[in-house]
């Protein structure tokens, strides 16, 4: 066995996974080759460092487990057989059909948007809104204003900007971080009392937003994307890039975009 062969199978040798003949061959090679023996020692040392570094972190999984439990309970309830005494299975079926219709319509819309390529960021925003707001899949949201502001600042969105939204006529409900296209965004959910809307924010970097300009509000060109399911609008200020999504009408998306463009 030569050195390159030995190095190649060293990982499996060190875990005892090699067949006897091959293990004996590499064992003999290591005895007679100081360079490969040193390599084996360095591998072991590196492994200890890696294990220590990664395992020094003890992440809190309680929130994840709670959300998994909620989803499992909801799914278990949805699986109650039709024909049983309760009236509510029919309701669940209705909800499931409704949810499936939303998913189907959105998938179609997503594909249309993807076909346009330039609007991928809008397609991602629409997908996130559908999963996390319309279908309310359990997620770890921050609901306290101070927590949301702290989260915003980690993404370069000022606490003042989050505050300013309070004067837009919409109430801030919750926030989290998500990724659209290649950027991380602060995903805020706001409500007008009747419906929830998504507002995605990140620092502006001069990249023009896709879509045609619908109107100019407060000096900001508001763009909109045509979409059968989710309605998307976006604008850019000096500091921020904002994308609005709703499953309501295009006018509802524009209304929130106008309010946000005035506030931010």
């Amino acid at each position: 066995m030569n050195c390159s062969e030995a190095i190649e199978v060293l990982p499996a040798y060190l875990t005892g996974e090699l067949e006897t003949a091959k293990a004996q061959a590499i064992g003999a090679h290591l005895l007679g080759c100081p360079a490969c023996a040193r390599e084996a020692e360095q591998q072991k040392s590196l492994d200890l460092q890696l294990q220590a570094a990664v395992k020094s972190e003890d992440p809190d999984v309680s929130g994840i487990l709670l959300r998994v439990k909620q989803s499992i309970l909801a799914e278990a309830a949805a699986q109650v057989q039709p024909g049983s005494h309760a009236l509510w299975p029919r309701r669940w079926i209705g909800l499931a059909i409704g949810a499936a219709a939303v998913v189907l319509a959105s998938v179609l819309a997503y594909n249309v948007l993807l076909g346009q390529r330039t609007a991928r960021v809008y397609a991602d925003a629409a997908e996130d809104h559908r999963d996390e707001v319309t279908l309310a899949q359990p997620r770890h949201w921050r609901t306290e204003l101070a927590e949301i502001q702290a989260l915003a600042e980690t993404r370069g969105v000022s606490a003042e900007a989050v505050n300013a939204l309070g004067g837009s006529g919409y109430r801030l409900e919750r926030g989290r971080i998500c990724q659209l296209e290649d950027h991380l965004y602060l995903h805020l959910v706001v409500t007008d009392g009747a419906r929830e809307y998504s507002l995605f924010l990140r620092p502006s970097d001069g990249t023009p937003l896709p879509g045609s300009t619908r109107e100019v509000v407060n000096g900001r060109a508001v763009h909109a994307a045509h979409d059968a399911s989710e309605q998307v609008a976006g604008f850019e200020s000096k500091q921020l890039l904002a994308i609005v999504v709703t499953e309501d009408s295009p006018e509802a998306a524009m209304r929130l975009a106008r309010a946000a463009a005035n506030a931010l």
Partner: protein
Amino acid sequence: MPHARSLLRVARRLAADSSIAEDLVQETLLLAWRGFDQFQPGTNIRAWLFRILMNTFYAQGRRIRSTPLLVSLQSPESEAEPGFRAPSSLLANAEVNQALADMSEEHRTVLLLGVVEGFTCKEMAEILAVPIGTVMSRMSRARQAMRSRLAANNEGGIRRGANGAACAQKGAS
């Protein structure tokens, strides 16, 4: 769920953000619950969970992948007298985590699964759905890449030596 922490530790080093990593683990556990009848009793449940995690990660594609710079690194030289180097394990951990974050996804994945989570090369081959030879060569290259990165920081390579497990902990005392 004793494996959730392990899943999250790995997910946090693959996904772009900690909340995206949480979503990934959440989805993994839900898929495992839905598909539990496909799990064969007597086989390795950890490997099965990690296979679901990796499949979910790959299926979600470009949107959730991490970019480097997860960990901020302080230069010890900038805050200490010349020639002095704090032997802090926290600092060493930060350096290793940064080196891991800077690596290619392929190399990071095999190091996390093989070295940190202790999967054997054969188990990794099943988790990643690649031939075992591919796993071994990725491991070798990943270790070399990691060592080069740490050596660049340490001006002389890895200095702490000790015994320990390598690709996996199978058979280790």
